[in-house]
């Protein structure tokens, strides 16, 4: 009787124990069920460095490319490389990468000095490879004929740290004129702003593109105004831009391209005052001011001990890999630039 009553509880405890033991096994050896990836086995401690598998972290902007290339690596000839991809963000990616977690990290900007210092302190050597170009698109509603082109000064006046509280486009005119903007005759229409939150790489890029330089000159913080509708969900941003006729927002070019009929991309005036609209061509030739290079950073030690990492990066930089860049909605690097990345990769030493 006693034993019978206690049996379910005892078995629960036993199962837990088994699960815990399984944890130890999984850490030190290949689990028996993924036989497909068991050709080359390294003695690595955690699963990310186990034979045949690659772990990619970093920017959520680079993530779609890494996923596409990863799928290719899983299906290509001898395609037994199991690629795991996550996209917590550029900053979080570097934090993990420089702590030795992850073989590769994607970044929507170059590594910062302090991040590189942490990597160096932890003895992590890496190689930086440019893989694609992303354009940032400043957009408004398709029903807003008044706004065709803006310059950095006008965008600073509309969305910079000094614009807090501006409820109408016209509120920004005085500040825009003071900054020497050619677009200081903004209409008196409600201004509703949508963009990604501070945690997003797209936010960082927007600040870099539109705000940072002027903020430095004026001694203000290099942030956007806080009173805008921030969302990590690009669909929410697109919905917001579409919902108001006089909206203003910014998204990655990939999202703009996918949802182009719901938004109107605003041309950006370059340093000569010439308006350049966002398009595949203007981004590829570098004439569109709001475009950025996307990178992957590869841990040299992990590449040396894990052939799967080498195979994956080789694929990333191959013609087939470059095709994935456009498939993911970004703009492929020019022939000379992708060649420079290939050279850097083969010269990693």
């Amino acid at each position: 009787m006693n034993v019978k009553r206690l049996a379910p509880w005892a078995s629960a405890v036993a199962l837990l124990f088994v699960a815990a033991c399984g944890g130890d096994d999984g850490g030190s050896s290949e689990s028996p069920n993924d036989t497909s990836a068991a050709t080359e086995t390294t003695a690595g401690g955690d699963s990310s460095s186990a034979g045949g598998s690659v772990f990619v972290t970093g920017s959520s902007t680079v993530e779609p490319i890494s996923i596409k290339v990863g799928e290719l690596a899983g299906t290509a000839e001898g395609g037994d490389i199991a690629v795991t991809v996550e996209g917590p963000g550029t900053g979080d990616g570097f934090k993990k990468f420089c702590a030795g977690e992850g073989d590769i990290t994607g970044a929507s900007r170059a590594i910062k000095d302090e991040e590189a210092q942490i990597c160096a302190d932890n003895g992590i050597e890496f190689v930086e490879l440019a893989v694609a170009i992303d354009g940032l698109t400043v957009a408004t509603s398709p029903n807003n004929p008044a706004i065709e082109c803006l310059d950095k000064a006008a965008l600073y006046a509309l969305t910079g740290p000094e614009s807090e509280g501006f409820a109408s486009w016209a509120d920004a005119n005085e500040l825009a004129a003071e900054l020497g903007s050619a677009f200081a005759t903004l209409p008196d229409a409600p201004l509703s702003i949508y963009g990604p939150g501070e945690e997003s790489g797209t936010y960082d890029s927007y600040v870099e593109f539109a705000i940072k330089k002027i903020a430095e000159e004026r001694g203000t913080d290099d942030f956007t105004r806080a009173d805008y509708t921030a969302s990590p969900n690009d669909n929410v941003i697109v919905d917001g831009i579409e919902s108001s006729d006089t909206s203003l927002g910014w998204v990655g070019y990939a999202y703009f391209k996918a949802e182009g009929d719901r938004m109107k991309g605003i041309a950006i005036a370059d340093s000569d005052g010439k308006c350049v609209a966002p398009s595949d061509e203007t981004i590829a030739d570098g004439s569109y001011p709001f475009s950025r290079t996307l990178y992957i950073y590869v841990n040299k030690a992990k590449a040396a001990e894990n052939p799967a990492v080498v195979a994956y990066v080789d694929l990333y930089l191959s013609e087939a890999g470059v095709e994935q860049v456009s498939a993911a909605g970004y703009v492929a690097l020019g022939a000379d630039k992708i060649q420079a990345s290939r050279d850097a990769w083969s010269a990693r030493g």
Partner: protein
Amino acid sequence: MSTVELSPTDLRNREKSRGSLVLGFGLLVAVTFTLLSLFVLLARIFTQAIPAFRERGTDFITDTIGSEPGISGIWPGLFGSFGIGVGVLLLAVPLGLAAAIYLEEYAKPTRFNRFVIVNIRNLAGVPAVIYGVLGLIIFVGWLRPITNGGSVIAAALTLSVLVLPVIIITGMEAIRSVPTGIREAGYGVGATRWEVTRDHVVPYAMPGILTGTVLALSRALGEAAPLIMIGAITGLLPETSLTGKFTAIPMLIYNWSGRPDSAGGAIGWSNSAAAAGLVLLVLVIAFNLTGVLLRQKFEKKRVGT
């Protein structure tokens, strides 16, 4: 008999009074609103999910996550969510039940014990993301040798801690509602406290305990916020294991809803997200059905005694 006898006409007149009519109408509106929003939600999930199932068939269940809705499946999420559900059942339920038995049957009502109970009640209201931070520090960080970082085991442990207060509180309520006579009868025939608890109190309280378990499990299976903190994968995850990188269905729903619906494919990410929601719904119902059936079994037993 000193009670006032009410004739049927009195009762009918009372129901007709304006106050009770207004109140009755208000309650009806509340019920209708609740049912209507539930109906709209279900209808929307179904209409969105059907194209995904039509296009993908059973591949949607067995394929791994990918770059396009047309080739993405939910297998790693299903594996993760099922693992979390089983983990919570094995860990949080016995632990919570044991705590509830101790606090109701064994602990003396000292000031300290009352303080403990108040704190458990408060813990039930702590936002899930806070438990995510806890899970990140303890189960992903300190207990890395056991969990191997952000794994199904780490997620199951974190969500177990998350639902423990709910299980303890409902367990305590259920045990408290057991009539004192049952305990006294047990002591009367010479049973020890543990025998009374094991053979009489817990079986009698079981329906209530199972209700708490069902609630707790549903909550654990539906949480995404703690899993974001732990680092669930949403990009690409070809291998599923208890100790490797993991994902769960709520994470996939959250992530897929955030992806743009490209014009090309037959189905968009919103369809995949809705289909994932449907799978989660079925998973939760399957877990809960087990709980409900068990509860009925115990309820029948109780009536029989």
